[in-house]
């Protein structure tokens, strides 16, 4: 296995599972189960044991690997010089399971659905652009930007709502955007994170070909996962595009256009999506937007930016739900943390986070106390 010369170097010291001030365990799967096998060090030692034939491939081994939400906290806090390889190592170990055909059934179903339907929801392709009906947003032809919404933004009800709000807002602010609609295909970010390299390549190459054919040069993504794939993985396959997350564009547009906001008296906090924050280093754009709204009292959760706590939806867990439910589920922990700030709103910038935290608010029976709103949705309230 690739990285065999690195895996044994983990000391399992545990720095990787903390925040930088050590206040909290910040690895979602470790936080959920409380067994060290579910922490990054545990995975490293198990992968090393698997390489050395000290343990065999098993459903439990697969579950441990697939419970990683690829949030990147371990890479942020590991003290060794191989830290940047941690997620690559976990991904490679999952690739081995894929090769062996030894993956959890939920993961298999995820791959199958994408392979057959082009999306994990098993929904028809021609339903993909329905979110845009009534918004006036046109199919991409020669607009300046492609607005790419991804699977969740296309099929999930919460995601579709977010796509409509973000798309409409961008258009209202005068941005020239077009969408692919039924021509859009899964970006493949989570497919890759789950170790299905072949399928990822098919998706990425098809997307790259499509983008090039229709003359896409600039892409705005709704979803930080797509943002990550387009920025980091597509260039390796010849897909060099200018890619922004919508909060970056919005922050810039709001500075430029200086729209008149109505006063919005609310205390709110912001949850950093892992693929926008830790993976891509975009921390300030969403904050700039929220802080620019008159009346908004912006408060940080204890865990923010590089120390943000994942909602639990990364690494494909949004679809496979290997981390499961319960009061120790990451999204519920995160909602309680937001509640501790006294906020009425948890602002998000990712459709997966929106859905995960929305569900967690319901599970915590906090519907009347706190609500989850996309950054663009907060702005819409004031315009």
């Amino acid at each position, binding site marked *: 296995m690739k990285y065999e*010369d690195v895996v*044994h*170097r*983990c*000391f*399992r*010291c*545990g*720095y990787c*599972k*903390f*925040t930088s*001030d*050590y*206040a*909290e365990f910040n690895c979602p799967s470790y936080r*959920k*189960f*409380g*067994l*060290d*096998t579910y922490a990054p060090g*545990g995975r490293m*030692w*198990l992968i090393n*044991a698997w390489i050395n034939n*000290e*343990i*065999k491939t*098993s459903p*439990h*081994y697969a579950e*441990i690997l697939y419970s990683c939400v690829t949030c990147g906290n371990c890479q942020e806090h590991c*003290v*060794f*010089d191989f830290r940047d390889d941690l997620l690559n190592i976990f991904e490679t170990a999952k690739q081995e399971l894929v090769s062996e055909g030894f993956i959890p059934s939920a993961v298999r179903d995820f791959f199958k659905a994408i392979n057959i339907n082009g999306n994990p929801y098993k929904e028809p392709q021609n339903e993909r652009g329905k979110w845009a009906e009534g918004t006036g947003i046109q199919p991409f032809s020669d607009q300046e930007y492609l607005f790419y919404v991804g699977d969740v933004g296309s099929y999930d009800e919460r995601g579709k709502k977010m796509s409509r709000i973000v798309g409409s807002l961008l258009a209202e602010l005068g941005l020239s955007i077009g969408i692919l609609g039924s021509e859009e295909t899964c970006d493949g970010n989570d497919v890759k994170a789950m170790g299905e390299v072949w399928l990822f390549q098919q998706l990425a190459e098809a997307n790259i070909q499509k983008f090039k054919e229709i003359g896409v040069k600039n892409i705005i993504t709704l979803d930080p996962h797509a943002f990550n794939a387009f920025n980091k993985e597509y260039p390796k396959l010849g897909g060099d595009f200018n890619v922004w997350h919508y909060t970056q564009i919005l922050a810039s547009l709001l500075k430029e256009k200086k729209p008149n906001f109505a006063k919005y008296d609310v205390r709110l906090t912001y949850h950093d999506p892992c693929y926008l924050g830790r993976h891509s280093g975009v921390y300030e754009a969403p904050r700039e937007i929220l802080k620019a709204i008159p009346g908004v009292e912006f408060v940080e959760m204890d865990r923010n930016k590089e120390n943000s706590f994942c909602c639990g939806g990364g690494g494909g867990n949004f679809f496979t739900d290997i981390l*499961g439910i*319960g009061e*120790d589920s990451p999204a519920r922990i995160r909602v309680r943390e937001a509640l501790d700030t006294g906020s009425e709103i948890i602002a998000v910038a990712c459709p997966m986070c929106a859905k995960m935290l929305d569900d967690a608010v319901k599970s915590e029976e906090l519907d009347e106390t706190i609500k989850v709103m996309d950054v663009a949705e907060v702005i819409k309230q004031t315009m």
Partner: protein
Amino acid sequence: MNDIFEALLQIVGKDHVSSQEEERYFYARDSGLMPPHEPDYVVAPKTTEEVQRIVKLANDKGIPIVPAGAGLALTGLVVPLKGGIVIDMKRMNKILEVNEKARYAIVEGGTSHGAVKAYLDKHYPTLRHSIPDAPPAVTIGSNIVIHGQGRLAQQYGFNSDMVSGLEVVTPTGDICKIGSCSMSKYWFSKGPSLPDLSGLFIGWLGSTGILTKVGLKLYPKKKIRDIEIFVTDKEDLVPDILYKLTHTEMVEDINAWFQPLPLMFKGNHHVNIYITGDTEEEIEFKKKIVWDSLKGYFDAKDGGFMWVFPAMKTPFLEMPQKSFMSFADLKKGGGFEYSGPIILVEKYPKCVQKLMEIGSKSDLAYSGFARIIGRSHCMMYSFALAFNRADSDMMNRVRKAINELAEFVYEEGGIPWKPSVEEQKMALEHMDPNTIKLMKMIKDNLDPNGIMNPGNWEVN
């Protein structure tokens, strides 16, 4: 599913119990070099009552139990030598109370040192505890049962000296309060003026009970913390330097270290002197006293203070000191082991010579480090040896070296710190028979079925 597993599942819930190969593999070993032994079950309880139910179950069925923190002692103390149930305590991580004016905290036994530090920094910025330089995952409970040492060791002794009360689950499943908390709502004293029962558990390496709550003494945290490093190339002078420094009563922590690589450090002994104060004036005053105490050495050209440039100062001032971890990957193999005896400070030169001898003849990368405990009452001397986990020959050389170092320690009148089972056996060979008899009486009475971390401190 067997009855034991089912019972454990009922106690802690399905997410927190396992008898699967993966958990058995992981919890069979720590990061050190001790041979692995697999547990039959691993559980991660959340409350004292859950611990109690697990212990009662184990005692009824005669199943060994091994309480585990972060597993960072490196001497196999959480390796279940006789199988059974490993109880991972890290989910018991609540900070329950801080009594600011009486300067103590009550925390659950599995609370990490890192979490306590972060909590105090945020909520009680004038208070601190004695944080060790082990990774922040180290738990309060486990660090106490091994007599750990931290940044306040020179001022206040072992971390186990800084306990102000305990809640313990005994091997027969009783929940016992130790100290003032046994009769009061306050946790200010672990013993005095009562019989000090904490000694029935502290130092026993989890073989007499499980610490579920700990009263932890807190200390003033000064606003400024700084470091001076005194350097000498004469190891024979180091004990006297340390004596003079401790006489000043002006310093927080004192560490003496030497290492052959990088070459800029070779041949010198560095004495890290940590100074704290609430004002620059206080810092300068203390520094002056410290400098004056060592003036004779630089007058005689036997040593001097080195300039600690900012990039060097930062890692030294970190708590815990992250840079220690780099030694673990010195050989690009993620491993180091150390023998860390408690020994007289006057033995520093002999320890240095022995470490150099071992390093040279065994062809091993090494580093020596002394943490002063009390006013030079003793020191923990760390003979640290790096290894590559993928190099079995190197690992065997380290094992052999560690054994030789243990013999050396006994010859020099030292005692082992967090001793491995082999070192415990050696300790018992050197121990007064009546002391052994007393230990046996305690162990037999507390743990009649011999279920608690069996193999450790076995005095039969």
